[in-house]
């Protein structure tokens, strides 16, 4: 078999293994640590008898590994259990919210990715001149700002002072596509700003690395136009690192989404997770944690697979 196929198969297997290990970690993290779900539900004033009853009912007296496999079996069949706080089915609740979160993340990425690559190229083109310095100053500022700060600044000016956009991004099914889009302009803008800087800086570094290589010099010494040098020699080698950068930052987006959803009261996964952490609703937290981790692991895996595919040494072995 072609070595690339083997490598990719290995990488996918590793991803699955990692996901499996992650599920154990999340399960162990929520159940072995001090604090008890039954206690959490009933509160401090619960009688020992009612606590014992609840534990029995929830199967908390079974050994941990048994509960883990029960949970895992459920997860694999799409059954995430039901919420402790309102007894509703978690899978159906997450379904709609996951859609909302992906909708928001999709638009943020759609703006951020091309913009970051463009600005990264600009920084390379004007390296060490003012556009580059401006961009790196912006980067410094943006990695120092908390996401909620960006959120409230945008709300303060765009929603409150100038009233261009709504300050709260509630969306529901009956809204039209354009209404939804209008509602998410501000949160999407914040998310864009959050990942833009990192992505730009990493893109700049990746492209600079290629532009400073000896083969680009060779191309210049062949008398090719700058455009041709970039198109034929720099670009094919820069795709892999840039895709890598994009994937890593999209993975970062997953985290940014949590805070931004809370700021804008957006009905997505992040909001749902945070709400239920305060309610100590463990099954919901486990389910959300697993989904966030899966997205994160998946994106990292895609980044690695792209690197494998783009490596000519692996594609054309000796």
């Amino acid at each position, binding site marked *: 078999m072609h070595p690339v196929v083997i490598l990719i198969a290995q990488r996918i297997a590793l991803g699955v293994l990692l996901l499996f290990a992650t599920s154990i970690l999340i399960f162990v993290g929520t159940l072995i640590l001090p604090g008890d779900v039954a206690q959490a539900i009933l509160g401090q004033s619960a009688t020992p008898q009612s606590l014992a009853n609840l534990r029995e009912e929830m199967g908390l007296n079974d050994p941990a590994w048994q509960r883990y496999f029960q949970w895992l079996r459920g997860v694999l069949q799409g059954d995430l259990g039901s919420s402790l706080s309102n007894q509703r089915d978690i899978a159906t609740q997450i379904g709609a919210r996951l859609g909302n979160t992906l909708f928001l993340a999709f638009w943020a990425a759609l703006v951020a990715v091309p913009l970051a690559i463009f600005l990264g190229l600009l920084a390379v083109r004007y390296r060490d001149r003012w556009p580059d310095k401006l961009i790196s100053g912006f980067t410094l500022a943006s990695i120092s700002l908390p996401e909620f700060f960006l959120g409230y600044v945008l709300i303060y000016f765009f929603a409150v002072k100038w009233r261009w956009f709504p300050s709260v991004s509630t969306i529901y099914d009956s809204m039209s596509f354009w209404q939804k889009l209008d509602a998410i302009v501000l949160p999407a803008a914040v998310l864009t700003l959050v990942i833009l800087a990192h992505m730009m800086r990493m893109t700049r570094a990746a492209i600079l690395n290629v532009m*400073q290589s000896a083969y680009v010099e060779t191309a*210049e010494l062949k008398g090719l136009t700058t455009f041709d040098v970039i198109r034929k020699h720099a670009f094919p080698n820069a795709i892999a690192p840039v895709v890598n950068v994009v994937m890593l930052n999209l993975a970062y987006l997953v985290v940014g989404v949590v805070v931004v959803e809370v700021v804008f009261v957006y009905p997505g996964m992040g909001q749902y997770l945070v709400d239920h952490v305060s309610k100590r609703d463990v099954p919901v937290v486990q389910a959300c944690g697993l989904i966030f981790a899966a997205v994160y692991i998946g994106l990292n895996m895609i980044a690695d697979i792209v690197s494998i595919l783009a490596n000519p040494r692996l594609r054309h072995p000796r």
Partner: protein
Amino acid sequence: MTEDTFLKVRDLKIGATAYPPGEPPKWIEIVHGVSLDLEKGKVLGLIGESGAGKSTIGLAAMGYGRGGVEISGGEVWINGRDILSGSPRELRRLRGSEVTYVSQSAAASFNPAKKIMEQVIEASVRHGKFSRSEAEKRAVSLFDKLGLPDPETIGERYPHQVSGGQLQRAMTAMALCPQPDLVVFDEPTTALDVTTQIDVLKAIKEAIADTGVAAIYITHDLAVVAQVADDIMVLRMGEKVEYGSTEQIINAPQEEYTRALVSVRSISHEEKPPTNEPLLSVQNVTARYRGTNFDVLHDVSVDVHPGQTLAVVGESGSGKSTLARVITGLLPPRDGMIEFSGRTLSPTLAGRTREDLRELQMIYQMADVAMNPRHTVGTIIGRPLEFYFGLKGAEKKKRVKELLDEIEMGDGFLDRYPAELSGGQKQRVCIARALAAKPKLIICDEVTSALDPLVADGILKLLLNLQKREDVAYLFITHDIATVRAIADSIAVMYQGRVQRYGAKSTVLSPPFDDYTDLLLSSVPEMKLGWLEEVIETRRMTSAGN
């Protein structure tokens, strides 16, 4: 100047802006007003040590400054035009069409994502010199002429699928393909093994002769350039030292510096007869690296006698550095044993006594990574004194000063950091550190190969003097036969992990030779005209590397 002079450089000045930390940026001139002429079909050699500005001048002939380097003054005339006053567009028309370039590292200069053929013909097609199919035909004939295997199909491979020596030839084909008037060769054989170098050198020389192209040949090795150049310019620190015909430069150098370069490696060393009792005896050693399934050393046996030098020579991959790792205990052998000072050494580092370690010291090829950059020279040399002999305070300082004197550096260096020393000084400090342990044997792993020839000569002389004074033995690992001639008492030639030939220097270096030793010995460029042709005529085996 004649009609045929088509490259004319006048008072060329080149510099770069440096950004020293904490200071305002400043302009540093690298080349200070160099002039030269080149006729059609001739080859000019530019020679000098690192920092001489030779590559910078070579690239200036294409109007190019590498990494922030700028041409600040002078004129470069090619075919009657001053290219420095031309527009970027005119420069582009010149590059890859009238003037082409061959770099030191072809492996890095080929785009890893594109097939070789595509890159070789790219300039010809872009500049409209040939149609694609014409260019491809031309490339194939160049591949053939340059001695590449399978010239018809090698262009369909990717750069990583062919060897370094082959890639270097492919790059020469790339430079010759558009029928340029001038090719700039920038150290094209430096990164290759000697036996490969000679083939590439021959291929380049014949290709130049066949195509009638003019060339600038840049190298630090005078013996190499003497084989290919018609004229030679000797450069030092961005200035011309001497400029004349190759014959004049080699046979009748005028300047002191040129004379030194010509007579480099002329150190002579009287061979000593072996003693009854060897100091170090490596017996039937076989070794492999962990996690691999092939042996890098096969049944190696050599002796080093007290106060003498055993030179271990071989090309990259011959196993010579592995042998050093086995002797020091870093790589326990699979089989065989090592005796040292009459006792059997433990195969592992952990099993050796402090006395074993003290008596067996090591000096490395890259002096700048062999010293902790955060320690001063005083600490570096003082540590073995403290560690092995328990010296402290004033006593230690006194001994460090003595050692600094021995390596011909003053005690002004005590508080300096390695970054503040020159390459030669760094290597001297490493020698002092080894000496501080009062060893019986020092393993020298390519200690001169990263240095400029004159500096390397100084180090070799120092090592010989120290051997006389301290009666220390050396196991000298090198790929350079000239160095071996200069210092060895006995020689082991290694090839593919085996000792190919072993004995006293005079025996090993006298015929009859086995095929490999013949190839190795004959491949070392000699400082005489016509050497290349002579060798090609007489040798028996071609390049071992591929």
